[in-house]
């Protein structure tokens, strides 16, 4: 292999910093000269590439390769690079020209009116709201407490019931992963099960459920029990610090068939 210095002397370096292509002469109806000259003219927009057929140039390049007496891969590569540039450039030029983008000489159309145009209105509303806070009206009677129990449970509070549920959940086993789409058990089915389990004797919730049970089952049990209490079919009372449940003595309302 020739030393780097010798190569540099033998091969002229082009303005792009690459070795200039070999003096391959190309003759086309619109251009006559070397490949390097064509490359230079196209790059400098002196020749319109669309008018130059590339087929004769490619033929000339192959002729050069075939008749290359002394293998000089650097020169051959430089010629290939120049040819590839011309082919790529022409290919881009042959692509359909996209529609020119509209010039942004006017502001983009914004919804009318935009938020900032409400500044005056917002300020007025703020002042009115402030003024309104200075006057008082006869107040409407307060609505029902959202946490109020729908039925009277004597001395049993929602907190007592929540504590019973928490106690039950602590004993629940981790739930296994189940595939999606499993049919859900209806609450009315669960209510029937709970009703069968309830007896005249007062029992803790955790004593009624057969272990092991999951959190899902515990919640279902609790919801069913709440619904039975609401319907008057189950009774609840505080015993010590816990709540206990039993079947209600009266049995006036049947379990709904469609409760979910």
């Amino acid at each position, binding site marked *: 292999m020739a030393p780097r210095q010798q190569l540099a002397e033998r091969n002229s370096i082009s303005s792009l910093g690459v070795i200039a292509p070999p003096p391959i002469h190309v003759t086309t109806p619109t251009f006559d000269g070397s490949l390097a000259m064509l490359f230079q003219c196209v790059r400098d927009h002196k020749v319109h590439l669309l008018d130059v057929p590339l087929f004769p140039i490619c033929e000339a390049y192959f002729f050069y390769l075939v008749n290359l007496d002394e293998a000089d891969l650097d020169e051959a590569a430089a010629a290939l690079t120049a040819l590839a540039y011309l082919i790529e450039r022409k290919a881009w030029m042959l692509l359909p020209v996209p529609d020119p983008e509209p010039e942004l000489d*006017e*502001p983009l159309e914004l919804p009318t009116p935009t938020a900032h145009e409400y500044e*005056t209105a*917002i300020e*007025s509303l703020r002042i009115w*709201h402030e003024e309104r806070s200075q006057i*008082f*009206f006869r107040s409407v009677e307060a609505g029902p407490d959202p946490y109020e129990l729908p039925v009277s449970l004597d001395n049993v509070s929602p907190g007592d019931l929540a504590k019973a549920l928490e106690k039950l959940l602590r004993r629940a086993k981790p739930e296994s992963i189940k595939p999606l789409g499993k049919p859900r058990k209806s609450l009315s089915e669960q209510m029937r099960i709970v009703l069968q389990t309830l007896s005249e004797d007062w029992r803790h919730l955790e004593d009624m459920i057969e272990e092991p049970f999951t959190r899902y089952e515990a919640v279902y049990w609790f919801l069913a029990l709440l619904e039975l209490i609401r319907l008057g079919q189950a009774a609840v009372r505080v015993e010590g610090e816990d709540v206990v449940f039993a079947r209600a003595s009266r049995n006036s309302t049947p379990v709904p068939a469609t409760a979910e």
Partner: protein
Amino acid sequence: MSQIVDTLEALLFVADQPATIKSLAGAMQVTEGQVEQGLEVLEARLEERGSLRLTKLAGGYQLATKPEFAAVIAAFLKPQRHRLSKSLMEVLAIVAYQQPITLSELEQVRGVQSDYSVRSLVERKLIAEVGRKPVPGRPVLYGTTQEFLHQFKINDLKDLPEIDPERDDAADIVAKTLFDD
């Protein structure tokens, strides 16, 4: 007339929401004109003395305390006042002016996601669903409520201040600077 004024005062005293002239006239078996006259007299009488005043809001009339008693009443009732944030106020203003409006239209005007603000205003009963837009997807249309009128002491939506689209504020100046060249 004195009898009508006294009756009006009694009715308004027990009313826990704005009473319309029509409903007052119906209850008193008098004409709406007589009620209007009676309300004028009552308003003047209350302004002269006492701690109450006649307030016209949400399309009706209601007795309210005078502002000079606000501090002592607040100390007595300890009311929970919920301030509306700037974003909530902005959403409320847009709904008030553009109603009925869908969430996506609202977001188009604001340029930011507004579902939380809308939900919050619905919870405060200041806006509510008023229907569905007859377009694909049938999005919910929102409008202001009577509670909105009450909370802002507005008698009618027509009383809202006019918005000025020509207002030359900071955003306009920026837009002009960017696009005028």
